[in-house]
């Protein structure tokens, strides 16, 4: 029973990791790659860790596994946020089939302050990135 | 596997030395880091590698028996890593200062002290 659980979790984990890897290789722009990274990999690795927890069936291992998963869940999106906005600063273009860019023109180039959704930028909303 | 590791060590040495020989200050530091890694790997490989048997005594045991990795090279490398870390951080700052004061990245410009003055 436990073995089967391990087979399943580990297989799923590996598959998601593989998907994340393919994703990061195939996705057409930085933002999409980041997006893929934070999801598939997190889940995949979580599952692999879970497999370990199931295998050892030990409180200390389980707590450690939970700790690792929580850490990943906290840090991965924060990292994604940081690198995502950085990518925008660097002027990395969105994929050319992107439909909307609300962020355009909102960053102050020198202070990196970010404007909220105020009136005078409303009309930009439907503009798509070139 | 040891053969591959030996080749890898050689490559690390080669690339470290090659990088130190460049004229760019930044490459110098990267070379130092690479070379340091190469040396660690050399010690590690020469201490003979063992898979999956860390030199840690089991909870229930009092002595380590059976097959286990030689802990000594590990301890040595650990010490070497820490020391290299100290040296590397110093080197990074040294290079930064040097660049700021000398205003060049070109190591070839740094040859006035060898000349007779």
């Amino acid at each position, binding site marked *: 029973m436990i073995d089967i659980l391990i087979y399943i979790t580990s297989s799923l984990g590996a598959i998601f990791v593989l998907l994340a890897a393919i994703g990061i290789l195939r996705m057409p722009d930085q933002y999409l790659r980041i997006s893929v990274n934070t999801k598939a990999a997190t889940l995949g690795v979580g599952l692999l860790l879970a497999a370990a927890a199931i295998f050892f069936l030990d409180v200390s291992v389980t707590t450690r596994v939970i700790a690792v998963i929580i850490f990943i869940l906290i840090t991965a999106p924060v990292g994604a946020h940081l690198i995502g906005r950085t990518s925008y600063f660097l002027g990395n273009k969105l994929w050319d089939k992107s439909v909307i860019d609300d962020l355009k023109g909102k960053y102050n180039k020198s202070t990196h302050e970010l404007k909220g959704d105020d009136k005078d930028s409303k009309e930009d909303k439907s503009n798509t990135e070139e | 596997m040891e053969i591959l590791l030996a080749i890898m060590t050689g490559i690390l040495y080669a690339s470290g030395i090659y990088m130190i020989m460049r004229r760019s200050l930044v490459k110098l530091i990267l070379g130092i880091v690479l070379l340091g890694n190469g040396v660690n790997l050399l010690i590690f490989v*020469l201490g003979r590698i063992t898979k999956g048997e860390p030199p840690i005594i089991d909870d229930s045991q009092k002595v380590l028996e059976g097959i286990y990795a030689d802990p000594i090279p590990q301890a040595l490398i650990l010490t070497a890593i820490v020391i290299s870390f100290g040296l590397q951080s*110093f080197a990074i700052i040294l*290079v930064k200062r040097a660049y700021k004061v*000398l205003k060049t990245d070109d190591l070839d410009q740094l040859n*006035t*002290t060898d000349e007779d003055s």
Partner: protein
Amino acid sequence: MINDIILLPLVVHLFFSIVLMFFWNKVNFQKTFSVCANVIALGVAVYVFMFVYNNGTQTVQSGNWDAPFGITFVGDMLAATLVLLTAISGLAVSIFSTVSVINARLRFGYFSVFHFLLLGLNGAFLTGDIFNLYVWFEIIIISSFVLISIGGEKNQLEGAVKYFALNFFASMIFLTALGVLYGLVGTLNMADISMKIAEVENRTLVEICAVLFLVGFGIKSAIFPLYFWLPASYHTPPSAVSAIFAGLLTKVGVYALIRVFTLIFLDDVFLDNLLIALAIMTIFSGGIGALIQTNIKKVFMYFIICHIGFMIGGLGLFTEVAIAGVIFYLVHDIIIKTNLFLMSGLIYRIKSNFNMKKIGGLYANYPKLSLLMAIPLFSLIGIPPLSGYWPKISLILASFDAQQYWFFGALIFGSLITLVVIAKLWSEVFWKDQPKIEFPKKFLFFDQMKLKDKFLFVFPITFLTFVTLYIGFGAEHIQQLSQRIASELMNNQLYIDAVFKN
């Protein structure tokens, strides 16, 4: 406690460094404390020396782990002697530093790094463990990196970059050698290695390992063709720093070579000839380097290289007479080179310049100081009966006995060029009239200093000069000591027995 006497030099210096770090900003406290600390350290060193002298080689098994399982410290006569010399140089430099190094530098941990450096030197001399030796080397080089670059002036940084890169490389080669050695014998205790390496069947690998050690230590001790960092950097920091570097840093490399080649890698014709060949080239290269310099610090610097060759060659001759000569030379060299750079600091303070072409008239204006400085200069040349002369007898004798006439020639060449260059230096700096140059306006000249500060400038030089005179005129004592050390070194079973006696 009685067993740990040889560790006292380490304990006190580590303690001093810690205390000095706690009083980070108190420059005046640091000055006083460091000088007092060095007086204490000298006392300790004398005590250790006498203890070893009277009671023979001492060992401490740190952690109470029997050799070869822990780190063993071995205080044999050689180590004790070097500890004593370190303490002497250390005291002189620390006094000199209080007035010659500007407060801005002192405020940034100069003294505490200085004590770390002394700690490292003492540790390197006392340890009986090859990896531990590496660690001591690292504390030495990192301290020297800091001392050589602190202040961050232009040429200092230039020198420091090269100094760093090549010394780092040396450490890496040292580690490589260590890895190979461990791979061959599986132990790190030098006495243990000495026994186990004899059992290694593949002698070629042992030779390669020796060559790696030779290069690792050779870079640090500045032998040909590994010395290039030295002329690029030693003259750039303040003179006090150059002094301690000149006196002790390269010598610790020589020490390591002596240790390794008398304890571990023995009786190898290839290695001995290699050492001698390198020594000849070192003497030659260093000598002609000194010949063409006009910066007095650089002249002294090339002499460091040149005279290292004397010692390395003696080591290559590998007879008891030769080793005695090497030890004597080492004793002489540590004191004299420290003093030379202190003197260069004094000259700079008087003339605001290091360039021979731009300074002169010292003899006319400072006759007594000039005579004081003449003694170390003559000792450097080896004018008999001053200190540099005596070891040459042993070295020449040994070179004849080994029929190494090229090395004999190199000895003569090195001595001659030292003579000529120092005479030239004397003629330029001391005899010649002061050329008309513009002196910097914002410069505190020696004449304008307070009497107390002047005294602190001159005292260390005088102190070391007296030590040099003692080495010269008390050559009998030094030679007996050297012979004793040489016989200890040539009979490495003594060392091994001392380590494993418990």
